[in-house]
Each structure stands twice: as C-alpha cells, then as structure tokens.
C-alpha cells in the first residue's frame, strides 16, 4: 500500500520527519490569505489617499476662491458651511430609509425565521433576496416615473392634515420629488440586505433559549421578545449598518428622484430642500472642471468620514453591552 507502510519503530521516525513541502504549502496558503486581507487594507488606504489628494486643493482654498471657481458654492462661507447641508441631507435620507426599513425588515426576518410555514419561508426568503438584485437605475426609473406620482396625493394629504409634525411641514411638492419619496425608495433598496442578515441571525438563535422561554409559559411573540430579539440585537445592528452604508452611498436612485436643494430644513415633503453627497457628486461631476472637481471629491471625502464614523458608532454600541451579548 502506498501509505505509511512502515515497520514497527519506523512510525516514530515518520512523526519526526519534517514534511517540508507540506509545511511550505501550509505557510504559503496562510500568507496568501493574509495577503488578501492586507490587500483590502491597501485598497482602502489608496481610496482614502486618493480622496485626500484630490480633495486637498478644495480643502485648503479659501471660501472666496471656492465661491469664485465653483458654481454652486455660496458666497461668504467656508468649506464646512458648504458641505453642511449636504451632510444633513445625506444623513436625513439615510435615517429616513433606516427608520422605514428596519422595522419592516425585522418583521420580514421574523416572519421567515419564526412565523411562516417552513416550506414557504425558503421561497419567500428567495423573493426578498431578489429585491437586492434590482439595479439602482431601475429603482430610479421606477421611483421617478411610477412611485412618485402615486405617492404625491398621500404626501399632500400628510402635508395638509399633519403639518404640525415638523417633518410634514413646508410646502409639499406637487410632483412627489421630495426627500420622503427618496426615503421610501432607499428603504426598499436596503430592505433585502437588512432582512437577509437579520434572518440569518434570528435563525441562529439557540434552540435552548427559545425553549427556555417557552418552558416559562411564553407565547410565540414573547419567545421572540425575550429570546430571539435580544440575542439578535448585535446582528440586527450590523445589518442596519450594512443597509445604512448602502443608503449613504446610493447615487443613481437619489439623483433621479430628488429635487435638490441645500438647506437644513426638516420638511421632507417639500421640493428643493435636500441633496445627498453621492447624488450631488454624480449630478455636478459632468459639468465640473478644475477646483470644482476637487470640491466634489472633498464632499466625497466627507461622506467617507461619515461612513467611518457610523461604523465606529455601531461597533461601540455593540461593544458597550458586550457582556450581555448572545455570544456568551
């Protein structure tokens, strides 16, 4: 036989023998894997450097110079005063989308993991995953041509009857091309990501904990509340962060739907109030030259920093209650 066919005492020698080629492969494979990880860091560093390098002229130029060279740059302000409304708009869009999507996504995830009949749930999970595969241009087209007109009467109604709520104030758009519509479309876009991750997390809830709750006399919803949701908490937060990342960076759909403006207004039904950084870059990049491009990329850098901050916050939130996490 071709395997270790060794006389009695030779086995020890086998144990001793260094199989250098094996070890070489082992180490080689390890370094390839490490290399892939490092490559990611390098790429990210390169992206960050690229942003910084391209943004530098805009960051160092004075407000007057920028106002003279960059068409949309308002007079008498600094770079921060200029990106402020954009940051506000970006966050507003992302928060709106998140507020709409997270509860629904948790609902769907629970539905698939704990409520729907087993057979059905796979098919349903697949269907929701499909939403993730629809290109953002299509979302843009649909949001602009189909959804906005349908939502308009509803927005007008909200504006008319609930305008005392800060969000619904202002002069509602008659074409539906307002932040509220963007929020809805973004919510639909990030729904599948959040759902997919949450679903997996909920499915991982240890049977032990669910049964513990059941044995205490909990109804199905109470099982979900006492065992499933707390266990999935950090997973749902990461899922939401993934969704948030997508919402923050979404370009085409926002670009095609929103009617932009640069203000700190909360009136999400009004036109011409908000703009997100990503859409802004895409909108103005074609006509920009020189310092204008630098300014746009500086805005991109700000978005990058926001993403970084959001992720750090999420990690912090998860870590803060680490000792109560389901991983123990």
């Amino acid at each position, binding site marked *: 036989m071709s395997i270790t066919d060794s006389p009695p005492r030779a086995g020890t020698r086998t144990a001793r023998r260094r199989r250098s080629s094996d070890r070489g492969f082992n180490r080689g494979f390890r370094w390839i894997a490490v290399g892939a990880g490092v*490559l990611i860091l390098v790429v990210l560093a390169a992206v960050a450097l690229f942003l910084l390098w391209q943004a530098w002229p805009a960051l160092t130029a004075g407000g007057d110079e920028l106002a003279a060279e960059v068409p949309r740059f308002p007079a008498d302000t600094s770079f921060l005063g200029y990106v402020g409304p954009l940051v506000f708009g970006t966050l507003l869009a992302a928060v709106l989308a998140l507020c709409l999507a997270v509860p629904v996504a948790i609902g769907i995830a629970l539905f698939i993991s704990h409520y729907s009949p087993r057979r059905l749930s796979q098919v349903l999970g697949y269907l929701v995953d499909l939403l993730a595969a629809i290109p953002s241009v299509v979302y843009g087209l649909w949001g602009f041509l189909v959804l906005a007109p349908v939502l308009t009467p509803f927005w007008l109604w909200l504006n008319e009857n609930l305008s005392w709520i800060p969000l619904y104030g202002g002069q509602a758009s008659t074409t539906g091309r307002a932040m509220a519509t963007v929020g809805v479309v973004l919510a639909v876009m990030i729904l599948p990501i959040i759902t997919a991750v949450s679903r997996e997390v909920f499915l991982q809830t240890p049977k032990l904990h669910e049964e513990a709750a059941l044995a205490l006399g909990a109804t199905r919803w109470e099982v979900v509340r006492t065992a499933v949701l707390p266990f999935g908490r950090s997973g749902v937060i990461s899922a939401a962060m993934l969704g948030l990342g997508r919402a923050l960076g979404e370009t085409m759909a926002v670009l095609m739907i929103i009617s932009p403006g640069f203000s700190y207004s909360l009136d999400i039904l009004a036109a011409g109030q908000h703009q997100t950084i990503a859409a802004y870059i895409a909108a103005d990049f074609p006509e920009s030259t020189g310092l204008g491009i630098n300014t746009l990329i500086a805005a991109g850098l700000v978005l990058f920093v926001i993403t970084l901050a959001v992720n750090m916050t999420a990690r912090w939130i998860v870590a803060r209650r680490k000792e109560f996490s389901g991983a123990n």
Partner: protein
Amino acid sequence: MSAATASTTTSDATERTRALLTTADSGRRRTDRAMQVLIWCAFALAMVPLVWLLWTVTTEGIGRMSIDFLTLSTRNIFGGDPGGGIYHAIMGTLIITGIAAAISVPVGILTAIYLVEYGKGWLARSVTFFVDVMTGIPSIVAGLFAFSLFALFLGPSAQMGMMGAVALSVLMIPVVVRSCEEMLKLVPNELREASYALGVPKWLTIVKVVLRTSVAGLTTGVLLSVARVIGETAPLLVTVGVTDSINFNPFDGRMMTLPVFSYRQYHQGYAPCPAGESASCVADIAFQNAWGAALVLIGIVLLLNLVGRLVNRWFSPKLR
C-alpha cells in the same frame, strides 16, 4: 405500575387545575395575535414594491423583447428608429462583471478565510472594520478612484472595461468578504477537527473540507455580491464610457453595459418623429429601450441566481 387515579382526588382540585390550565390570559393572547398579524403585514408590505417593480419593468420592457433586440447592437441606430438591440450592452455587462468577479471573488474569499481560520489580533480586527467601511464607499467615488489609478499609468484618455471592473471590484469585495465570512463560520468545527485528526494539514483542510462544505453558502454570497454591482451605473460612466458598437476586449476601448445603456436611453428622452408616429419612427423608443434593458438585466440576475441554486443543490451536503 401504579393503580388507577386515586379516588381521593377531589373534583375540587381537578376544577382548580382546569381553571389554571384553561384560562388563557386574554391580554397576552391578543398581543401575540396582534404581533402575528403585524409581522404578516410587514411581509406583505415588502412584497408590494417588489411585485410592483417587477410588474412595471416587465410590462414596460416586454414589448421590446425580440431576437433582434438581444442579438444586435445600436450601432447606426438613432432617433426614433426602433431597430437595433442591446447585444453590445449584454456582452459588456457580462464581461465587466465577470472580470470584477474574477478579481473580487478570490480576494474576498481568501480574506474571509483569513478572518475565519487565521485571523486574530489587530490585523484581523482592522480588516473586519475596514471591510465594513468599504461597504459604504459611494459607487461614484469607486469609479473616480479607478479612473485616477489608471490615469496614473495610462494617461487620462484611457477608457476600458478593465477600469470599470476594478471600480466594481472595490464595491464588490466587501460584500464577498462579509457574506463568505458568515458562511465559513457556519462550517462546524467538528469537521475541521475530524480532518486535522486524520493528519491533514490546515491548508488542505480549508480547501478540501471547509470550502467544499460551504460551497453552497459561498455561491449565495458571490451571487449577492454580483447582484450588488451588476446594476451599477455611475462608476462605469466614468471609467468605461459608452459606445454603441460591440467590443469584446476589456483592455481596449469603451464598452456598453446594460445599466448605463438604460440610463442613457432614458436620458435621450423622446425622439421627434416628423411624419408622426410610424413603423420606422417611434417617439418613445428610448424609454422602451431603457425598460427593455432593465428587464434583460433583471433576467440575467435571475438566471444567475437559478444557476446558483443548481450549484447549491449539486454541492450541498447529501443527507441520504
């Protein structure tokens, strides 16, 4: 075995027990029901946009479907001419996404392997963290980055499929890493230990046991990531440009992709038809083309998912 129910059991005790066991707390029952309904509603609610969107795309796009539409390019097609097709865009999408996948999938899976099988300490922590950060890079920034990167070496006039693929890779890698990491974590440690105990080195264990066992999950992850980038528009406009001719070479010249095609067609808007609507001049042909391309794109993604399902079935652990 014990005797039958002792006659000492008073019917009183029975009644008390019955009362205990049959009085459902109506408030809690109601909450339970309400939550059930709510969760069903959440699901139904999510189905609305999905079905609506698919319906819109299908009804608007189905009219353009024909052999010509799928096998011709729009070269020399202009105005309200209803001829031509999207073959060039289909090929561009397949080639560019294919290259992006060829770059991202190995890097992503290797990184996931690193994180799950080797990773510890600050390097692993920072890779995890920055992968999260990467998921938030706006696609246009990825495009600009790839453009500048190539411009450093090839000058600013370079536009080619490869650049677009690099831009898409920047967007795709984090998705691959994230999903594959989860999938690899699901492989039971038992199997790794079983393999080690047979005297199999770690790398072979990873390749032949861990990867092999999680193939199904990995396919899902890869498909998710492909779906994430196949619909990108903004970075491709910057890096790959547009063309209406067929180009199979990702290292030279522009290429068209379906999302870009769709976007550009939408942008062209109505065509003036001087002699009124006729067979050779359709005023809203550009919109029809845009929806048609979107439908084909969704079809491609569906097809990929279907293939993925088959791969899953083929490779998934067999239980009987």
